[in-house]
């Protein structure tokens, strides 16, 4: 009898999980499916299948340039975000100092501010900064510059690096650092040989999530791109304003594949289920 109830519960849980999974996968499945339709206007059932939209995407310089720009920004923002976020996480997790909790919250804040608001605020501050610079006789292009875009993306990468590295630090055993020092390792060697390897899962996860966040960002970037420079999500949006053929689906498939491959590679080194 007990076995019976348990298996009923089991089926319910599995059923709920399957429904949720289907719900999450549905848009992805349709986008991928659509990318292979032969006809220009997406109608069901498809008239046939072809790879022509992938060729069209590759031949479209706007998409290719936007893809390269997005990749550059995401890589730069992730690297800078890690260089800033890892030391910040160490400081917050390891040391007691004035306003530590406040600083910790501030570091996570970009995650909760809506992208549109963030984009507007950064745009306004870029304008102000350029005016200020001009006032002291400097002509620095900030609005719409690649540097400004990267800086903004660093802002949304930092919460991920800080959060994920702090989480692994909380589970890390500090006495092993003392053990290393007892055996003759100075602070730098201890960090490099002992601390860093133990927080590696967090850093790998932070790299992945930082990259994905930056690579897929639309709302904030909308305010910050300059003439002749767009990121991939923006290029997709702009294309959709004029056309509704499966080229965007093909571009999305490429984007999804890159992220999926990044996740698979990461998972080989660090079991993602253990950090996230």
């Amino acid at each position, binding site marked *: 009898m007990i076995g019976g109830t348990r298996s009923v519960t089991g089926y319910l849980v599995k059923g709920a999980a399957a429904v949720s999974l289907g719900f999450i996968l549905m848009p992805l499945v349709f986008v991928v499916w659509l990318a292979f339709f032969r006809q220009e206007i997406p109608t069901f059932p498809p008239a046939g299948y072809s790879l022509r939209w992938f060729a069209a995407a590759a031949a479209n310089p706007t998409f290719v340039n936007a893809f390269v720009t997005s990749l550059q920004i995401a890589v730069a923002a992730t690297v800078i975000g890690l260089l800033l976020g890892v030391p910040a996480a160490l400081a917050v997790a390891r040391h007691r100092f004035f306003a530590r909790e406040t600083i910790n919250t501030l570091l996570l804040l970009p995650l909760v501010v809506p992208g549109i608001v963030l984009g507007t605020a950064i745009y306004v501050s870029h304008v102000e900064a350029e005016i200020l610079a001009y006032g002291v006789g400097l002509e620095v292009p900030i609005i719409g510059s690649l540097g400004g875009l990267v800086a903004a993306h660093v802002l949304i990468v930092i919460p991920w690096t800080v959060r994920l590295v702090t989480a692994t630090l909380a589970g890390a*055993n500090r*006495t092993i650092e003392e*053990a290393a*020092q*007892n*055996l003759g390792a*100075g602070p730098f060697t201890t960090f490099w040989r002992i601390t860093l390897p*133990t927080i590696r899962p967090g850093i790998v996860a932070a790299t992945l999530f930082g990259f994905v966040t930056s690579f897929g960002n639309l709302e904030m970037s909308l305010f910050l791109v300059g003439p002749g420079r767009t990121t991939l999500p923006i290029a997709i949006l702009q294309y959709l304003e004029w056309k509704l053929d499966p080229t965007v689906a093909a571009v999305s498939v490429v984007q999804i594949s890159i992220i999926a491959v990044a996740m698979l590679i990461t998972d080989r080194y660090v079991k993602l289920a253990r950090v996230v």
Partner: protein
Amino acid sequence: MARLALKGLEKRYGAATVVKDVSLDVADGEFIVVLGPSGCGKTTTLRMVAGFVVPTAGAIHIGERDVTRLPPWKRDTGLVFQSYALFPHLSVAENVAFGLEMRKMPKSDIGPKVEEALRLVRLGGYGERYPRQLSGGQQQRVALARALAIHPDVLLLDEPLSNLDAKLREEVRVEIRELQRKLELTTVMVTHDQDEALVMADRLVVMADGEVKQIGDQRALYERPENLFVAGFVGRSNIVIGRVDAPGRFVSDGGLGITCACAQAGPGCLTLRPERLTLGDGNGSANSFQGTVEFVSYLGAAIDVHVRLSESDRVVVALPNKPGVPTPNIGAQVTVSWPVEAGLVFPEASN
């Protein structure tokens, strides 16, 4: 190997003093055990020797060197942590090699040294494994091998056995002690387990409330405790509360008039070791009292008999478990006797 000297060591955190005026000389090759209840400052003292805690006052010398202000990595101490603190991402051999690498030993010399250290703790052939693949006892031995491999001036053991099960603990105690003798290592171990302390130490330091209560060997601490804390903490003692009326006479709060070697009049506590008490009239012992057996526990080597001597005095008599020694039943009327010198009086209030 070297001498270790602590001089007037003190540690304060704000208003709280956790270690007060600890002075200690550890001879070359001596095994010192610092024994005390948790929170007595023993671990803080050990961490000051290792360099993880900066003393507020006092000095630490290892050999001829004043190391008081040196960071941990510039002192030659080998610390075995309570949690072992093995590097999880390094193999057993790499764990043991770490300290040697830090000493810039050539790679070709490290391999044999690591093997030797692992053989010493009977883990030869385990070098390729990772800490998580080992049992608690094996991890503990890797931690020991890692500390021994660097040939430290002083070996420091922070409750190294407290995470092992009882049976294993008894084996490892003897093992560590034999190894320490063989290598003639100057060693300081910290523990709250008095059996462990008594088995392993050359000399013991009993600490409580941040202070050293007594330093001495096992016999001195047991036979001649200098204060009530040591009398109660090392081994078991019956404590009888009362006052010294006249030289040689102690009267308990329950009205027992006890003959003892005490001089100073005033309130105090009389301590009696359970195994020094006997049942029966004791062939003219100076002290003989009638009482009722209230509780009996059979412990194997000894049988504890709890006897009420007065309304406020109850003592435990430990009877050796030998043929011909009868065990009284609960409720039986018995006589408890002890010689004058069995009672030690301390002029302190018991808590």
